[in-house]
């Protein structure tokens, strides 16, 4: 087993003296399902941004899928995100007015795949998350749980090494939330490394590994 995510003594501080993350070490193996749990302000979103290569550490080393983030240009980091990292956000970030298939297919826009192939993979991903019969539906025709499933399909359509989910159930009722968590578990069983950020200890507790955080540190 090799580490797909490796954080070594990572600190992220902002101008003005705020330190969101302090000296964090973390190693996640291929195929793990892990919860990063902590109250708001504990630094878990900062950690997600660093793991997702949307941000760079002030000091320390971040390795994703074997790549040292510090050595990569912005262009190469973008390519890394396009091919190896999938994101699911609390607020779904679906485009209004576009149907599920287009939205998921456009998630693959930056992989360089031709349009037909993108649509084929979108159909497959949507079927995989249980929305095979909702391909032509637009966001306003879908329930919250279904919208988050579309977002999950978009994140996994490109077959990423890591799926990062930031409060994926935060905007959902408990039934829809449970459904989405079950879906993430299924994806993990099929081989995807899944990292869930949550403030909900119950959700965190249902996952095989928890990384509790407080005040920018792993405790």
């Amino acid at each position, binding site marked *: 087993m090799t580490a797909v995510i490796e954080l070594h003594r990572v600190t992220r501080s902002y101008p003005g003296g705020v330190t969101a993350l302090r000296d964090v070490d973390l190693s996640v193996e291929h195929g793990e399902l892990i919860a990063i749990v902590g109250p708001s302000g504990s630094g878990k979103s900062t950690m997600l941004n660093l793991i997702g290569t949307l941000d760079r550490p002030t000091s320390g080393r971040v390795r994703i899928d074997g790549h040292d983030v510090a050595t990569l240009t912005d262009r190469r980091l973008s390519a*890394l995100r396009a091919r190896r990292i999938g994101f699911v956000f609390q607020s779904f970030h679906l485009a*209004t007015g576009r149907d599920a298939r287009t939205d998921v297919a456009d998630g693959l826009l930056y992989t360089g795949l031709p349009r037909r192939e993108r649509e084929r993979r979108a159909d497959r991903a949507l079927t995989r998350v249980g929305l095979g019969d909702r391909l032509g539906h637009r966001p306003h025709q879908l329930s919250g749980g279904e919208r988050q499933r579309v977002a999950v399909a978009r994140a996994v359509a490109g077959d990423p090494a890591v799926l990062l989910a930031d409060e994926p159930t935060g905007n959902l009722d408990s039934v829809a939330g449970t459904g989405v968590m079950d879906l993430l578990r299924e994806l993990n069983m099929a081989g995807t490394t899944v990292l869930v950020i949550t403030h909900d200890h119950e959700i965190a507790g249902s996952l095989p590994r928890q990384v509790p955080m407080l005040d920018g540190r792993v405790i």
Partner: protein
Amino acid sequence: MASLDPARLRPADLLRLGGYGLRSRPLRAVLSALGIAIGIAAMVAVVGISTSGRADLDEQLAALGTNMLTVAPGRTMFGDDATLPDDALPMIERIGPVTAATAVGTVSDTPVYRTDRIPEGETGGLAVVAAQLDLPGTVNARLAGGTWLNAATARYPAVVLGAAAARRLGDVPAVWIDGRHYSVIGVLDSVPLAPELDTAVLIGWEAAESHLDFDGHATRVYTRSIESQVEAVRGVLAATANPQNPDQVDVSNPSDALIAQRAAAGTLNALLLGLGAVALLVGGIGVANTMVISVLERRAEIGLRRSLGATRGQIRTQFVSESLLLSLLGGAGGVLAGAGVTVVYAGTQQWPPVVPLWAVAGGLGATLLIGAVAGLYPAIRAARLAPTEALGAA
């Protein structure tokens, strides 16, 4: 480890990306494209209309010929009206390249009335003009009706009316001149190269001398020359017509006057073109404004795209192509509208409608330039957004 070279966006994908923002807010897209459309339409219409007018003038000139020169008496050095010598016409006819020459003489102080019942003084501004038989052939005048004078009618009290004279007098069988009736035997079409004939009541040279107090002096000589020699003829006409006082002779080329008239209209065109350019500039600012707002509103989308793997360059390209598409939309609409205005206006003027290709290409080129300039700054701002910040905005 996977290769980490970002994939290039395909042209078709780029087009879809550019159109995405426009399709999601169609009304705003149409309104901001409208500014550009109005500017381009104005410029294309101005160029199209003036080109159509020039095409019409060219057609006219081709039909009329540019080889006509007219000779008229000018003024003496004391400011009095000069006269042409009696032998001016035969002298002019002797110039080698002159192929035709004919004289007319205005019969002074001879009012024309519709009937003998019209009170004296209500003359309608018409002049009695003595003409020679070869006048229509030389000035390219056509008859609207009736016949031209012939050797017989040129001796009798008969007249041919100019186009404007016929309109003013109405459909009358005869006119009343100097105490007697003169039969109207024909009416001319208007003569573009000799507009003074339009208000003339033309009478035979001999009849003018025998029935009216015509002194026999030519007041204007129309000449036609070999096309290539027109300038040379022009140089010697004054001295030939009046060898003693060549400075008392006015020589002119009526086709020059037509061209000059169009050139005067050209200054107005320049003004309208300037207005079109201002409209275009305002349209461009409108597009820039729309793009700035679009970038502000779509921070979350930008963040999402960055998380999906878009490079800064790809974000920039997306917004520039959106701006290009937006202004091109306006430009294409403007070219169509401008061409439409040209066709309609040329139709009302009976001109051949012409929209020059360079105006169309220039219009579209200008919109592309405007789109690029208007979109560049907002696009750069969009690309500079940090992904975390952009996502946090949602």
